[in-house]
């Protein structure tokens, strides 16, 4: 591995957005370890890789936490983990009456559990160096859950809470470990919509966000290439006005 290259992990790298993110990060000079359940899908990503040897396929189910530990041990031989994009997710369309407790919790184990486990393992490297970058791919599915999406909506809402909880624990102590949420928007993938955004386009934003590590990005939420600011209370807005302080303006990713 090129010692100057940052080591990034992308979960769900066998297909869709994960594959596009892995390829984009390689194109931008990273070494990428791609996690995915299906070896055939991963090797297809490998074949598309523009730089020989820069993509390392690792077959692993993110809901199998023992397997994840072994996968991280393999990845660490390439170097310390600098970037983690928690992208792996499933979206079973299922009415709640068709869910069993087991089927519901299996979705949680992948979408939320995989994110938690990968973050925990990647942070072992990051706290040693005092720096790192985690991007959690989430959605607004929790705001107004649609029908036949209960497990997905709950897991994605929980993911956004998880990001905030991580920031609460780590930001003060490790300001250079930067964690944020990214909502790529509806994509033209198996999980998305036929007229959605092309994953390669979204991946440019995602890769740009993952390679931006300014501490001010900690705890921020991004939708496509735009920062989504927290709603300010009326009191705060009045106060800012009195102080002649400009209202904060959301940032935009330049690569878009």
């Amino acid at each position, binding site marked *: 591995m090129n010692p100057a290259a940052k080591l990034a992990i992308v979960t769900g790298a066998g297909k869709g957005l994960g594959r596009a993110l892995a390829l984009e990060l390689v194109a931008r000079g990273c070494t990428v370890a791609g996690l995915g359940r299906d070896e055939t899908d991963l090797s297809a990503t490998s074949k598309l890789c523009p730089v020989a040897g820069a993509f390392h396929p690792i077959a692993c189910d993110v809901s199998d936490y023992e397997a994840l530990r072994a996968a991280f041990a393999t990845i660490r031989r390439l170097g310390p983990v600098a970037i983690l994009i928690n992208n792996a997710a499933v979206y079973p369309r299922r009415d709640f009456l068709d869910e069993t407790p087991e089927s519901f919790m299996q979705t949680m184990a992948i979408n939320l559990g995989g994110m938690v486990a990968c973050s925990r393992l990647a942070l072992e490297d990051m*706290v040693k160096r005092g720096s790192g970058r985690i991007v959690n791919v989430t959605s607004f599915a929790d705001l107004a859950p649609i029908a036949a999406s209960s497990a997905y909506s709950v897991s994605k809402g929980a993911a956004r809470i998880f990001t905030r909880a991580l920031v609460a624990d780590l930001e003060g102590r*490790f300001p250079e470990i930067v964690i944020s949420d990214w909502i790529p928007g509806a994509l033209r993938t198996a999980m998305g919509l036929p007229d959605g955004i092309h994953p390669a386009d979204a991946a440019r934003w995602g890769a740009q966000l993952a390679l931006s590590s300014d501490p001010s990005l900690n705890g921020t939420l991004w939708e496509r290439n735009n920062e989504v600011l927290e709603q300010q209370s009326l009191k705060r807005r009045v106060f800012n006005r009195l*102080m002649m302080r400009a209202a904060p303006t959301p940032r935009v990713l330049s690569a878009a």
Partner: protein
Amino acid sequence: MMTGDLASRRWDVIVIGTGIGGGTIGRRLAERGLSVLFIEKGRSGYRTEQNHMAGDDVHDPEARLIRGSWPDTARARIEGQERRFHPAIGAAVGGSSVFYAATLERPEAHDLDDSAERPHPTGGWPVGFDTMLPWFDQAQALFEVRGQPDPLADHPTPNLSAGPAMCEGDARLMEGMRRSGLHPYQLHSAMRGVEGCGSCLGRKCPRPCKLDGRSAGVEPALATGRAAVAERCEVTELRGDGPRITNVVVRRGGETLEFTADHVVLAAGALSSPRILLASRCAEWPEGCGNAHGQVGRYLMFHLNEMFALWPRRGEGYAEAAKSIGFRDLYHAEGHRFGMVQAMGLNAGEGEILNYLRGKIERSPLRRLPGASQMARIPAKVAARVLGQAKVFVGLLEDMPYAENRVMPDPERPGGILIDYRFSPELHQRRKRFRKLIRTSLGLRRTLFLTYQPELNFGHPCGSLRMGTDPARSVVDADCRVHGIRNLWVADASFMPTSMGVNPSLTIAANALRVGDAILAAPKASRHEPLALSIPS
């Protein structure tokens, strides 16, 4: 190594606490060949952490401990008024010192010595200033102290190296002070000032720059291969057979562990070392270990922080926060003990001015107006803009030892701190004089005191296991060995008979080296020797 393994062996020395005192003495003993076990209430943590000491915004005890900060509130009865607050003390490897501003200043001879011109309130420390000098020198070398010699000092400081180049603004402000007849100098700092050095006032720093109980104490001790840290272990009691400590009992999570060593050093800090002794009771020590005369925990002192904003004169203004200026012209003046004046590394911002305004509101009829305290934010903002470049300084006012001022275990909470403290009339008077002197000494520069009420510096507690030759009026002897106990020593700020007019760190470090040398010189304890010593009465 697992904590259980640490408990199964016998150590040459157990050091309780890993701050400036514990870290320094542990390093000295390990480097001289002894095996040393540090027992630390907090965690080792990660070397890359950069957090500030937790304020009131973090109240969960576990979250506070993770941030290296004292987990619980302390209960204080100040002038009989009870309040609970989070004391600004650390609880992790390095103790409070990982957060400190690394100002390592020497005390003055009169802080230790009695003389006709400057009578000492206790008749003088049992160890004179000249006797302490070699250890001050060693501590300055060990902590790589840098700065300018104090122009008023009459003793040499051979191990003080030149400080970094001062910023132009500081230099101009100092020049102006000199014209007013003061003798400012660059403060003595234990920071290497590496490339990219941020000001780590109140913050942990991952860079190899600040020298503190962790970087200049525990870490070099561990590097000898003869030391270990038992982290997350809270000492609950010392057990002994009268004149000797045999076991150190700790709680780790829900588990009780016991450690053994030939010597035990208390360095848990002046608010905690006495509480450990008071909690250690047996037939021989019914009132607590070392407490036959009821002296443990008494004579507690803090410094008083007289904070003020100073506006540089026309042409002297600058944007950086002054952080390296101090002067000792008022240290002892008009026959009174005051202390030194130091820049705090802050510009007078909104927060300081807000505090000032709130103080004013509290003392006026406006205090009955709901929201008045919130409304103060707006003028504070305006003032911060207008007044801009004021620098915040602090006059450290020496506190005097009174037996009634004390620390003890909080009977309402196991492991809790209870402080009883009253301001003496003498202190009020000295304070008034000190403030007046500060104002007049700075000439025509505008100053604004940022505090009204006497403000105790809870980060500088000392005196609670006072050193003395008379066991009836002190807890430790001139070597800082607990009266009547052969193998129990004190190496934190508890030993100080008086609080001095400077930051305590250098004196704690120097004394820890001295106590370390006394332990090295003590006859090797035999585990089987007959126990013939009795507690002096």
